[in-house]
């Protein structure tokens, strides 16, 4: 709605191959990539209560950001779980490689002193 024409332009680029499709009947299958039928994947983060962080709850398919939020509302907040939704294209997430697990994490293994467990916290501080 807000981006008038954008969806149809994208779909047109996929569906109507006016450059070569209409006159060469035989060779099109080899030339044109198969039409993508799956919507892109989105990772969904929901904030359950004010003050808590957004938490990853799962993923879903949607054609664009607006619909990703709408779908997330229907798929992940049916039972009144959320006060806020983030949707991130799965393709935009950068992840560490499983093969890097050793170099990344092994070095921290024997360093218990990095855990802040050696302090006495007064009772009246409450939850930290």
């Amino acid at each position: 709605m807000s981006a008038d024409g954008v969806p149809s332009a994208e779909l047109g680029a996929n569906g109507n191959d006016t450059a070569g499709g209409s006159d060469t009947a035989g060779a099109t299958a080899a030339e044109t990539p198969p039409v993508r039928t799956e919507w892109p994947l989105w990772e969904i983060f929901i904030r359950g209560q004010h003050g808590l962080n957004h938490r990853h709850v799962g993923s879903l398919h949607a054609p664009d950001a607006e619909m990703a939020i709408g779908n997330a509302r229907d798929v992940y907040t049916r039972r009144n779980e959320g006060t806020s939704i983030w949707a991130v294209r799965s393709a935009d997430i950068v992840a560490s490689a499983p093969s890097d697990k050793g170099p990344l994490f092994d070095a921290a293994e024997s360093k218990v002193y990095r855990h802040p467990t050696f302090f006495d916290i007064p009772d009246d501080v409450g939850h930290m």
Partner: protein
Amino acid sequence: MTTNTATPNPSAGPDPSDALSGSLLRLGDNGLILGHRLSEWCGKTPALEEDIALANTALDLIGQAQLWLELAGECEGDGRSADDLAYRRDASDFRHALLVEQPNGDYGRTLVRQFLFDAWHLPTLRALAASSDARVAAIADKASREVAYHLERSTDLIVRLGDGTDESHARMQGALDALWPYADELRGADEAERALAADGIAADPDAVAAAWEAHVGEVLRHATLVRPEDGRGRYKGDGRRGRHGEHLGHLLAEMQCLPRAYPDARW
């Protein structure tokens, strides 16, 4: 099955409580029948996300129907529960608009049906939320929050698919042309309903129709869909008098078969 208990007093004049229970039945039946239609899609929609969204809408509508029918039964005073009204009436006792019983067709037709209904449903409920009858106002207030989202969703999809590809545009226009004649009945009102509106109990049908016009007109323009002419493709039904189309019998046969076969079943 209902003939023994359901005979309304034929000599009764314009009894306001009859008018109210009739109006409540209509609200309940609209939700029940449309909710059932939507439930037929469960597991079969084009995408998982749509499946869940549509099932959510169906559950909202059926939940609302339960509240309306319960109140309708109460106003009737014949001791019928919401379940009795949902499962033990015959086609001619249902009071919903013909639009909602129309078959699902393709996904586009389901969405157009939903959109035309939602655009009527929301202004109706918002007006009913200010009803002088506190019971009506309470149900309408709860329902209108759900329906606001229904309308937002169906509006968005109408624009996306209307202004989408040639194929989606053609399907949406076809669905609109086919369903448009039923929108007349939705926006109309009979004398009993006008009297209820004048008493501040029911929604003012003219205000609802104006809100419907404004929203539908604007959305169709955004969706590049052509508004069909009014008054074409006339049909002979009249949901208020229980004159329904051929599809309702099949729908009820499926919806009611369990309680009809096992009348005392509990679950």
